[in-house]
């Protein structure tokens, strides 16, 4: 159990007069120059919301255009710029930073029992880098347009594309530095600032997930930097690297690019695993099933994620033996994901489950992630991948993982920790409705893509044969629901900040250090430095289950007085 010494008095007795981190300092300067990880998390949240709208605008343009087989809304170049905008903004300025920089920033010090991250000023610097990079990218996309797709394949990007490729590359390099700085900060914090007694196997799974994510960020992102520098060298300075007419190799780009970009998929999904583990265990009142297996699965994914990049290149002309090895490793990496799904499911077994909004997001996540993961098995099989690579099947697959998975988990995590972050509660009925709407909206938008992809609809097509129209119409219609499901929480969450009911310190009766401090937490997180003498989950005594049929699941929570 999380044993806080000296023990906190009964919750009612805590005097709430000490200001929270929100009210400790005032004025715009106190936000823009803050080194408080919690305030920086909110700064990130504001920036990510803006980027989510920009990237979402790209998606709206794409889905509008694809409603009919002909070109109606955009020019050919306009369409190419829109999917480039959607991809670059959503990947590097929303999905990669989403959970780590907001929930991670806010929660990691709280979860390990620290006052702040290891390098608070570096944390602020990485936010400024991120904002600057985002501004440069938006300028490049709006002023000159970039039409390479988010993948920047050579020799198209280096020799043939017109547009601000150099500037976009630079922006992504800068965003990469921000990402590396964030990763280093988390690694250092988790290594060095754990509270007394907080052993590695007493870390909450969210902290483990962020740890795995940070490892991948720190090790993979430099390769992206390197390959984008090579693109800049060739495009800007004529250094022959990828151009075959001057002895270069265009496939070298793909190898380097996917060496980052495949692990980047795990940067996007690993944090979600952490969020879902925390939510599922809390709302089923059962300790996580197979905690240590969950930890090993995270590390297995983080490491093996580096070894599968070649499965993006089965039709590129790489050797069949390379494809064989990459296919094998891609099948192997399915195993830890399966472990996680089974363990979440078995955490429900013999629980006392309630279905507040975070739990609905989590159950939805497990369903969507399972579909996303299983469709990955088809892609790992070389003969099927040859047929469906670069089709909508792939688009469907990665949206199931990265949007159905990561974005659902982000919304779920936000609704789980919102009372802690803001000290307010949001209207639960609306939140439940939004969670259910997101599941179905997502399904209607992206499931048709598997079918049209297998039928042969290539991706990045503005115009297409009429036989595919029915699937595109379904997808565009689903996107309307999905947009509603994304906008709705923004509305009621914003509402709750002003008019929401005040939240208790531990509104969900969850375990974990972050719930033992006030909501919202004080500037320095804990009034008394916490000490820990048991694992993160103590919803019931070991070897027993949560008791049956009573209104207070907390009754089983053993707290030493």
């Amino acid at each position, binding site marked *: 159990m999380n044993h806080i010494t000296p023990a906190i008095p009964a919750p009612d007795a805590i005097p709430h007069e000490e200001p929270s981190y929100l009210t400790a300092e005032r004025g715009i300067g106190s936000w823009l120059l803050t080194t408080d990880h919690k305030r920086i998390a909110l700064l990130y949240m504001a920036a990510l919301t803006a980027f989510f709208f920009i990237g979402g605008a790209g998606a709206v343009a794409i889905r509008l255009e694809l409603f009919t087989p002909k070109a109606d809304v955009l020019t050919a170049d306009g369409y190419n710029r829109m999917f480039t905008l959607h991809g670059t903004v959503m990947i590097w300025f929303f999905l990669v930073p989403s959970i780590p920089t907001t929930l991670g920033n806010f929660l990691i010090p709280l979860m390990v029992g620290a006052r702040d991250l290891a390098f608070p000023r570096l944390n602020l610097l990485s936010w400024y880098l991120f904002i600057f990079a985002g501004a440069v990218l938006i300028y490049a996309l709006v002023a000159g347009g970039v039409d390479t797709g988010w993948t920047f394949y050579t020799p198209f990007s280096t020799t043939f594309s017109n547009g601000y490729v150099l500037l976009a590359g630079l922006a992504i390099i800068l965003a990469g530095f921000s990402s590396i700085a964030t990763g280093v900060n988390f690694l250092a914090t988790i290594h060095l600032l754990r509270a007394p007694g907080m052993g590695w196997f007493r870390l909450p799974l969210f902290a483990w997930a962020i740890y795995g994510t940070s490892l991948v960020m720190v090790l993979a992102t430099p390769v992206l930097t390197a390959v984008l520098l090579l693109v800049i060298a060739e495009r800007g300075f004529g250094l022959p690297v990828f151009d075959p007419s001057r002895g270069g190799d265009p496939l070298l780009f793909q190898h380097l690019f996917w060496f980052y970009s495949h692990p980047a998929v795990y940067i996007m999904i690993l944090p979600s695993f952490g969020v879902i583990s925390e939510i599922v265990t809390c709302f089923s009142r059962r300790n996580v099933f197979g905690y240590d297996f969950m930890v090993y699965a995270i590390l297995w994914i983080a490491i093996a994620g580096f070894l599968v990049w070649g499965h993006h290149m089965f039709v590129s*002309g790489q050797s069949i033996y390379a494809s064989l090895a990459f296919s094998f490793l891609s*099948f192997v990496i399915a195993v830890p994901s399966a472990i996680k799904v089974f363990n979440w499911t078995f955490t*429900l077994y013999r629980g006392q*489950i309630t279905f507040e909004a975070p739990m609905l997001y989590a159950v939805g996540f497990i369903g969507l992630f399972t579909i996303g993961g299983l469709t990955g098995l*088809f892609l790992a*099989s070389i003969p099927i991948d040859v047929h469906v690579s670069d089709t909508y099947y792939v688009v469907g697959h990665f949206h199931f993982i990265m949007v159905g998975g990561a974005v659902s988990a982000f919304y779920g995590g936000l609704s789980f920790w919102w009372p802690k972050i803001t000290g307010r509660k949001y209207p639960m009925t609306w939140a439940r409705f939004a969670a259910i709407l997101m599941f179905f909206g997502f399904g209607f938008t992206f499931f048709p893509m598997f079918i049209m992809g297998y039928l042969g609809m290539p991706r990045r097509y503005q115009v297409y*044969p009429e036989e595919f129209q029915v699937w595109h119409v379904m997808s565009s219609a689903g996107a309307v629901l999905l947009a509603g499901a994304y906008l709705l929480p923004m509305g009621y969450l914003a509402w709750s900040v002003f008019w929401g009911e005040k939240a208790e310190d531990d509104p969900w009766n969850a375990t974990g250090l972050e719930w033992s401090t006030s909501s919202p937490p004080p500037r320095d997180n804990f009034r008394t430095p916490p000490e820990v003498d048991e694992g993160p989950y103590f919803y019931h005594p070991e070897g027993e289950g949560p008791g*049956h049929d009573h209104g207070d699941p907390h009754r089983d929570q053993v707290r030493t007085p």
Partner: protein
Amino acid sequence: MIRFWPATASDVAAQVDQLTGVLLAICGAILLLVGCLLLGFSIRYRRGSSAKRGALPEIVSREVEVGWTAATLFLALFLFAWATGMELRANPPQPDAIEVHVLARQWMWKTRHANGAQEIDALHVPRGEQVRLLMTSQDVIHSFFVPAFRAKQDVLPGRLTELRFTATETGTYNLFCAEYCGTLHARMGGTVTVMEPEDFARWLAVQPRGDDLAREGAALFVSLGCAGCHGDRRGGSATVRAPKLEGVYNSPVPLQDGRVVTADEAYLRDSILQPRRDVVAGFPNVMPSFAGLVHEEEMQRLLAYLRSLKDAP
């Protein structure tokens, strides 16, 4: 009518569909299992229900965890072995395959049959015979994709890639460019028409054509000066000693560094563009590079000519 499944028009397509079908069944079963457990547990163990709680039963323990990890791993390995085996056995090269040269450029497919007949954004092939596409690109990376054949291969600049298929059903099928290649990527498509062999022969015979590829290649062989060294030694015109090229295609060639390579298209192409890389054993390293002098269409003709050279008896 809404299609749920693409047309199946090649031998590989049938195999791929079979693999897809089995995977769908396996994944459907897993999804059903997860879905049932998820919903079942959610309902049965909702708060306050009268279902039995307490410690987990013996059976749900570490052994279960190890068990399903192992089961998933074995399933993954089985699927890998099956899929890969299929890939390795698919389309073994046949000596009498019909060869077609494909040249991709922004945003057009040019195909050229061995007799010189040319098509743009179209390809006609006979049913039941293996077709071998030798593909290269003039600019960026493209990808030759025929969904009905379940066949796709990227087409790269500066390199030859190969795609083999055997069509099994007559008809006209979509051809797409699957690798994003710039402004009109979405319009870089066409059709592949599969005909009965006799119809195909008739079709091919009436196509307007220049000289056939090999004949044009022979003219280039002389005009580029290749014949000066590699020419017919019996005629006595060759002054410099160079490897003889009659029958060289697809034969083993010993190199100076001791390796033995097969003189396929890729090797012949490299030897024209980068002659100093793989020098044939026993010959001086004197051939100049023709990179920049021979463009891709000329390269196709030269290769066709070299393939046509039969060994003198």
